[in-house]
């Protein structure tokens, strides 16, 4: 690859020309920044400005572009150049002139600020190389779907429709899953009035007829390894025969189990064959197939059915489910219709506390149930017990405010869905490398360092933690869908599975190009590591939020680039600093903070280093500038991919080279974390708690280093935190470590 040649371009637009000595900045870029080309321009983001730069790239061999203008968040499209280059954005607008007053007193320090940022930009450029994208790119585009129920079948059919080959692995002897036992399903078409065919048979036919879809029944996954584009899975049949196949991505649609109603004896669970759960009733209805549903106990005809909603759900009682399964209200309405449609004289009472039939389909279906004469009562059931050939149901009617004792021939308990999510990797100890064993309870049996199944989120479900990103998986290339993710009905499962299929396809397409999945979508950089130097401390393998790094028998990390999301947590974790990305490394940041011109101890010009998360804190500071807020001219901000990527060496270096304070700004941590790299902020706080020792040895005050959780909306607070640090430094004085 061609030698590095820095081209530094200083913009004079947006008042930069008036506020700053741009000539001076050009000189700094050339002399100190060693820029091969350094130019100023009145209006850099204009067609002319951009063309000027592109020409230098094409004709002058510039391959390290430094744009000293506005924030990296502005004019991004304008500064998207062609060619193998790196791009450094020096934030003179939002980062300097907009946060400083336009006064003569302020002029000097503002100029210094700008000058430092130009130095920093050039320093970064010097140590970056254009990302070449991962060497080993998986090119397999064959989708593995684990689970042959409604969700799995949908994912398979939809992916195949888009042209991708699919293999379904189903542990039972037939496709269809739970829904195969349903008599009918909740309608998904207006007028949303009548239960409709489940469509299972049609789907199975479609799958059998589709050359792109192969099905392996009575089979489970006994080992999963590899990465997006190059997964490998051992598929083992009941008989124990195992075949190993390669896949590009994986969809886990392992569904749910119904909550065991025997755990609800107070509601008659297990006390009488005439008390069934919703799945039980589906079986009865399927058997009756439109005819009269008979009592399980004695085959007598049924005159009255009572449906008990929220059975063992939405309850804090020991062993109950604290959540709501979402579909049960509509399901009970559907099931009451089984009776009403067959014989309107059968009484069907639904006892609920909140009737949850959302959306247009839900409310229409509720009304349809009422029209068919289903009785809805807001009530809490306290006891169901067999009594004289029928069932006695005790409940409090909350509308009539009255204890009621009613009789029924059949009671249906709306119990919840329990995710079939494999082993909880937080709970079970992981096998040591080399001693890896199959776990019968595991769905995927991944050989990942961090465990055999996907991390559970809440209540044992494999959902995404993020509201805006329901498919933000923590195991790149592996997506869950259907009730294993969140309790849901068929309609939602179909929608969910279709979405998951897209993400899986996207993961395969990304892998082929060595591209990262979001949040750093399209990032071609990848972590490389110098094996010599590695001390096998395992921090990177343990701390990687996405389980991207395995260990070989000798405890050396094994990177799986396609699993990597480029957050740099491994880089932050590494005590011997052998992990780096082409365009983001211990050097690219370390050299920036060293490039700063450090005034001496008596100058009364302290320096404050701010390492800000590029997704929340940095935009917050940008927007503060837009709003005309100001902060100390002694601040030098460096955006980082994630606070998890902050290597403590940066702080130590900063302190050693005379910085008077350092602030780390990351996202919210804890259970309700907002860090899109899961633990970045968490880890940073942990690591920084250890920096105190360093401070002691240098005998510096602890207040000089602060770590904060900063949300993107902390537009007022972020600058304030900087001001606070400035004030602290005033109080405790300058660092003695200036050279």
């Amino acid at each position, binding site marked *: 690859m061609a030698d590095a040649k820095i081209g530094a371009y200083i913009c004079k637009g947006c008042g930069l020309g008036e506020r700053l000595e741009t000539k001076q900045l050009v000189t700094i870029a050339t002399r100190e920044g060693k820029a091969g080309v350094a130019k100023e321009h009145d209006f850099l983001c204009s067609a002319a400005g951009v063309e000027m730069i592109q020409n230098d790239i094409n004709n002058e061999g510039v391959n390290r572009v430094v744009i000293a203008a506005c924030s990296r968040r502005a004019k991004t499209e304008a500064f998207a150049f062609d060619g193998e280059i790196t791009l450094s954005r020096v934030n003179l607008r939002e980062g300097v002139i907009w946060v400083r007053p336009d006064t003569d007193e302020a002029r000097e320090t503002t100029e210094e600020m700008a000058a430092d940022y130009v130095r920093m930009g050039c320093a970064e450029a010097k140590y970056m190389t254009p990302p070449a994208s991962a060497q080993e790119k998986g090119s397999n585009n064959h989708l593995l779907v684990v689970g042959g129920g409604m969700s799995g079948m949908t994912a398979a059919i939809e992916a195949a429709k888009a*042209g991708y080959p699919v293999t379904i692995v189903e542990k039972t002897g037939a496709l269809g899953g739970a829904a195969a036992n349903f008599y009918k399903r909740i309608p998904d078409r207006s007028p949303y009035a009548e239960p409709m065919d489940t469509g299972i048979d049609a789907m199975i036919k479609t799958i059998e007829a589709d050359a792109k879809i192969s099905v392996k029944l009575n089979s489970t996954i006994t080992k999963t390894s590899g990465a997006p584009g190059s997964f490998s899975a051992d598929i083992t049949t009941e008989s124990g025969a195992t075949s190993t196949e390669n896949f590009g991505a994986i969809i886990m649609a392992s569904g749910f189990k119904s909550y065991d109603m025997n755990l609800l004896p107070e509601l008659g669970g297990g006390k009488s064959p005439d008390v069934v759960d919703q799945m039980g009733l589906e079986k009865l209805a399927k058997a009756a197939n439109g005819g009269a549903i008979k009592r399980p106990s004695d085959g007598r005809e049924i005159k009255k059915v009572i449906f008990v909603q929220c059975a063992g759900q939405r309850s804090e009682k020991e062993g109950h489910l604290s959540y709501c399964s979402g579909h049960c209200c509509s399901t009970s309405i559907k099931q009451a219709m089984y009776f009403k449609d067959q014989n309107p004289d059968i009484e069907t009472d639904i006892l609920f506390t909140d009737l949850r039939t959302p959306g247009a389909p839900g409310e229409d279906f509720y009304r349809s149930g009422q029209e068919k004469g289903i009785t809805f009562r807001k009530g809490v059931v306290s006891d169901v017990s067999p009594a004289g050939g029928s069932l006695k149901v005790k409940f409090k009617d*909350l509308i009539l405010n009255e204890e009621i004792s009613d009789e029924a021939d059949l009671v249906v308990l709306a119990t919840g869905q329990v995710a079939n999510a494999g082993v909880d990797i937080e709970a079970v100890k992981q096998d040591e490398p080399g001693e890896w064993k199959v776990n019968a309870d595991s769905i995927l049996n991944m050989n990942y360092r961090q465990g055999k199944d996907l991390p559970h989120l809440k209540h044992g479900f494999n959902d995404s933690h993020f509201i805006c990103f329901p498919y933000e998986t923590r195991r790149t290339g592996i997506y869950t869908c259907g009730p294993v993710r969140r309790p849901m009905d068929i309609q939602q499962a179909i929608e969910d599975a279709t979405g998951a299929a897209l993400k899986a396809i996207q993961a395969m397409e990304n892998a082929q190009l060595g591209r990262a999945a979001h949040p750093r979508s399209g990032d071609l950089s990848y972590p490389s590591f110098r094996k010599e130097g590695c001390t096998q401390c395992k921090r990177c393998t343990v701390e990687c939020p996405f389980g991207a790094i395995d260990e070989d028998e000798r405890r050396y990390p094994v990177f799986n680039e396609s699993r990597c999301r480029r957050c740099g947590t491994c880089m932050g974790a590494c005590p011997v600093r052998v992990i780096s990305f082409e365009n983001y490394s211990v050097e690219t940041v370390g050299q920036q903070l060293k490039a700063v011109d450090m005034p001496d101890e008596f100058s009364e010009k302290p320096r404050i280093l701010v390492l800000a998360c590029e997704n929340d804190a940095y935009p917050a500071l940008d927007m503060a500038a837009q709003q005309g807020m100001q902060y100390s001219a002694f601040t030098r901000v460096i955006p980082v991919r994630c606070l998890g990527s902050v290597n403590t060496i940066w702080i130590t270096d900063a302190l050693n080279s005379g910085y008077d304070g350092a602030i780390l700004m990351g996202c919210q941590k804890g259970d309700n974390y907002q860090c899109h790299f899961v633990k970045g902020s968490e880890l940073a706080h942990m690591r920084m708690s250890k920096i105190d020792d360093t401070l002691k040895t240098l005998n510096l005050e602890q207040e000089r280093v602060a770590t904060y959780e900063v949300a993107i909306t902390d537009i007022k607070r972020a600058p304030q935190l900087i001001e606070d640090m400035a004030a602290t430094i005033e109080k405790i004085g300058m660092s003695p470590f200036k050279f």
Partner: protein
Amino acid sequence: MSEVIATNQTILVVGGGISGLTAALEAAECGKQVILVEKNPSVGGRVSQLYKYFPKLCMPSCGLEINLRRLKANKNLRLLTMTEVTHVEGDTGNYTVTLKTTPRYVNENCTACGECAKVVETEFASEYNYGLGKRKGAYLNHPMAHPQRYILDARIIGTPDADKAKAACKYDAIELDMQPAETQLTVGAIIWATGWKPYDAAKIQPYGYDRYPNVITSVEFERMADPFGPTGGKLLRPGDGKEAKNVAFIQCAGSRDVNHLAHCSRICCMATLKQTTYLREKYADDFKSTVYYIDIRAIDRIDDFYQRVQADTNITFTKSKVANITQDKDGNPVLHGVDTEGYHRYSNPHDLCVLAVGMEPSVPKDGFPMSIKLNPEGFVEQDPANGGFFAAGCSSDALDVNRAVQSATASALRAIQVVNKVAGMEG
């Protein structure tokens, strides 16, 4: 507007809210050519007007930042703002779409330096703040508005303000003679993500939204809670600017009502639960709140959040559809009705009454550019009859953000199936 290139392998996404953004990004990140049209000056849609999300209480702008980064970085995706689809012809895999772009009067040169806004004097009610508070005639809706480019309100064109703005711009970014433009494109599939609008609260006459200043809508309350909203994050009664510390929330304001919206809007219960937490956030323990509801629909794992709010002793839940509202001499809305759990009558004065207004499809039944199968509520049905036209998000049903994004992701695949077939890529 520079030349837009599209073929019948291009996917058109209509609507730049979170659903449209998601659908467009997911498709583009699968390597597809995507054109995203948004009728407003910037993308982000309704979620950009939210202070927080339920149940995590995290900031929507956090996810928006990520999506904007994805958008700026993706060369497969072309964004057209201030553009609407006026007509669609053709069929699956080969649609001819007519786009109408209304003038922004500001071109790509704009650096968002803000000089034009400084000189323009005329102010207008802020759409972004649902009419609470004003904005200049040259403006950026909010700090994260994308494209980060100002817009001149058409109403100042031809006034001295417009000339002042032009004079203030150093970059020839302002073109006062910009004209509406019509473009025709060929696309293979259409993702319809035009979302929802709040139901017109004035139509719910018994609640007097049009008569009592201290009866407001949930979307207005949301803007008030935002530190960068019209009240700087203070919960003030429009009537007299007094801080609202005893706040009533009326559920199903327009929803589940055959006189208004027959459907359940799904999100309102959760939105209200979320908004009660704003009261605690602002006032610690010094507040009271009553939620008047028919059923609290905190579906699936979100029910935890409901349980958490229920545990707050300052918040009361009353199972009752409020009959009507009157106003006492202090300007307090007085809510009249019957608590149906055991029959208790009430006439409760509150500082402020928030109507949890329902979700109405943005596009009226007769407003579609081609004939589309809708359900009676006006949402697009998933029906083969709609061919290569797929609804995403709230144009398909009243959905929360999470489900809207799922729906958008699914619709992206459906569209990809169409263009892949066109490209003969199967097998």
